[in-house]
């Protein structure tokens, strides 16, 4: 694999992690010690993607701005890897006028039409929407594809099954990506899913299925490449499941007592230091490059947050706008 490509993967993953760490810090900063979920700079729920960077990065390397992507309630890594503008996304998370939705959507409802990107807080409900985007692309005769990303918990929701059947039946250019991070809030995959791998469910719908182990960005890249190529060639959908890791809680503030000893094990499998070590061993990264990557990420993230914080809040009267066109 090309060195520059691999450095690019590392850079993007560091960019995402730097972002999530900064959001996490600001999210908590003004909520302790008397925790109030509705208080502070970033109120409400927050679902961060630390550990799942390889999925977003390996996948989005194959996507253009014109390809569609629907993401779940844990969307930041996917939005950033897809190419959503970091400043506008951040302003939305901070509830500002300059945000993607002028403060109406918040962190679970990020919409960027220029990237054909959206996310939803209802489990699995972005999957049929991606199928619809694929339907439009197909009818228009383009080579654009749509990707639906959801968690392993979502694979037990009706919308998942209907979507696979429909996309297969109509041979639509869609890729279904399942991020299996082993946990649906507090429920382990073994307690929710009747089969060891969702990739095997693909057979039930006549689509190609593949599971990637090891949470490795390059393995995701290879598998996603196959799926994306299949879709662009008009050969129909793929169900791609990636076994990844949720390093932090389901939401910020989740004490994760239910994970027991597994949490420490998960934390020892952080994909970014592991990939860095691999690239260093291969001579693709050195101290200077690593430092430069981190500095660049820190600068970009700090700028986006400063933009958000210096942006005005939306006027209360705007609450009544945009119900209808």
């Amino acid at each position, binding site marked *: 694999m090309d060195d520059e490509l691999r450095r690019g993967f590392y850079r993007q993953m560091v960019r995402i992690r730097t972002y999530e760490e900064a959001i996490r810090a600001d999210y908590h900063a003004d909520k302790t*010690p008397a925790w109030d979920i509705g208080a502070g700079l970033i109120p409400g729920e927050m679902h961060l993607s630390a550990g799942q960077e390889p999925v977003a990065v390996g996948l989005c390397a194959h996507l253009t701005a014109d390809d569609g992507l629907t993401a779940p309630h844990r969307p930041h890594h996917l939005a950033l890897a897809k190419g959503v503008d970091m400043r506008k996304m951040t302003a939305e998370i901070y509830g500002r006028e300059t945000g993607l939705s002028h403060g109406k959507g918040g962190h679970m409802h990020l919409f960027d039409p220029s990237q054909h990107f959206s996310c939803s807080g209802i489990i699995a409900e972005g999957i049929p929407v991606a199928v619809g985007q694929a339907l439009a692309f197909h009818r228009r005769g383009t080579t654009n594809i749509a990707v639906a990303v959801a968690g392993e918990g979502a694979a037990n929701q009706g919308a998942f099954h209907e979507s696979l059947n429909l996309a297969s039946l109509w041979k639509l250019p869609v890729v279904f990506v399942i991020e299996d991070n082993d946990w649906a809030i507090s429920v382990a995959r073994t307690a929710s899913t009747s089969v060891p791998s969702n990739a095997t469910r693909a057979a039930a719908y006549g689509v190609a299925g593949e599971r990637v182990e090891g949470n490795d960005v390059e393995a995701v890249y290879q598998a996603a490449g196959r799926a994306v190529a299949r879709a662009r060639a008009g050969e129909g959908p793929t169900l791609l499941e990636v076994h990844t890791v949720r390093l932090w809680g389901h939401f910020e503030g989740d004490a994760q007592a239910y994970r027991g000893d597994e949490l420490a094990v998960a934390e020892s499998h952080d994909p970014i230091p592991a990939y860095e070590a691999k690239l260093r061993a291969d001579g693709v990264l050195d101290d200077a490059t690593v430092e430069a990557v981190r500095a660049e990420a820190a600068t970009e993230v700090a700028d986006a947050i400063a933009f958000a914080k210096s942006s005005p809040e939306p006027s209360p009267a705007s609450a009544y706008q945009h119900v209808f066109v």
Partner: protein
Amino acid sequence: MSVEITFPALGKDPDQQGVVATWLVRDGEPVTAGQVIAEVAVDKVSVDVEAPAAGTVRLLVPEEGVATPGTVIARIE
């Protein structure tokens, strides 16, 4: 003879501040041994605090008041 009730250690960090999120009794009320008198929290982890003995409870920290593990938050007289 009074019995002190201290803020429990909830997180990994023994110095991490928490709060007495909810007092379930009022100052000066009679309580029984084992009665849940408060809900305390560190971040989103919360636990019930029980009265270790029967008696009259004195509340020493206000509701949503900050405390660290070991702080005396109430007394049973």
